[in-house]
């Protein structure tokens, strides 16, 4: 009487191959997880402000490099943004009060020029504002929506990121701090 049985199938090479496969999958998982990690504007507080160059609706160009030594209030807004209306008059008033000490810049986000101009006229906005071409600045500043306001010292450091409309006491407190950093 003769019987048969099969030899064990597991080989060292297969185990190594399986482990390598799992390792590759793990690496891919972490790469994707890192890519999906949310980066928000608030994380920029205390960090150097990202470089920018923006041309206002009047045709003047402003860049962080050219404004070195000038404290900045960079406000992202849009004519379709209801929350932006709430702070428009306050920002204009503050701009007038700190003229020569702090420069205000409006960054018009995902907006059309016609509506932007109508908004500025309606709310009496006189500080320079310009369209954010290809939303480049919005991406660099990682904004989560509008309005969002960045307070940048004369040496180019972000001291505060305001998500949503700002209130008068906080705005003037921050402007005092900014004005002290002007060169």
């Amino acid at each position: 009487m003769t019987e048969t049985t099969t030899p064990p199938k597991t080989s060292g090479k297969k185990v190594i191959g399986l482990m390598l496969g799992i390792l590759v999958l793990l690496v891919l998982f972490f790469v994707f997880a890192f890519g999906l990690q949310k980066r928000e504007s608030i994380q920029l507080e205390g960090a150097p402000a990202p470089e920018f160059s923006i041309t206002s609706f009047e045709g003047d160009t402003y860049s962080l490099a050219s404004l070195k030594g000038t404290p900045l209030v960079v406000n992202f807004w849009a004519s379709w943004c209801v929350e932006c209306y709430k702070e428009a008059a306050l920002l204009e008033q503050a701009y007038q009060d700190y003229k020569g000490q702090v420069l205000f810049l409006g960054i018009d986000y995902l907006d059309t020029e016609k509506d932007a101009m109508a908004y500025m006229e309606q709310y009496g906005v006189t500080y320079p504002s310009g369209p954010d071409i290809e939303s480049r600045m919005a991406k660099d500043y990682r904004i989560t929506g509008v309005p969002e306001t960045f307070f940048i010292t004369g040496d180019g450091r972000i001291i505060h990121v305001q998500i949503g409309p700002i209130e008068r006491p906080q705005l003037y407190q921050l402007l005092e701090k900014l004005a002290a950093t002007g060169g």
Partner: protein
Amino acid sequence: MKKYVNPLILLLSVVMVVLAALPALAQEPSMDEVNHVARKLNCPTCQSLNLEDCRTQTCDQWRDQIKDLLAEGYSEQEVLDWFIARFGVEVLQEPPREGHGLLAWLLPIVGLLAGVGWLAFVLNRWSKAAPPEPVPIESGAPTDFGVDDETLRKIEEDLKGF
């Protein structure tokens, strides 16, 4: 003669006004024309909606912009190019079939072909794999269970009783 002057001037004036207004009337784009372009653009503030279907204020403004551009004589492609230049390539519903946008079109096809190729390779390999060689075991030798043939035969006989 004099009595015909006034109606003639009036007629000429009407004709001139109509002629002057004709180009403007002819260039006023219809909603269908606006929507035809709008459906190729994304709503900038919401997810997965095209500009034609979205009813937010942003999209209303963008559709007005399309209408203005068409009225100025822009072609459909020129309107799309205007939006790309102003807001970036992300505004398009479909990525462009050139440059980096081409990757979005090609990668799924490459992935699918790679998957089919891999499956074909594996199935082919399995079908050609030789069956494992049987290992002869001498009669009477203990099996893998450690039970000899005689014991197994007795067990099988006993089981028949049930």
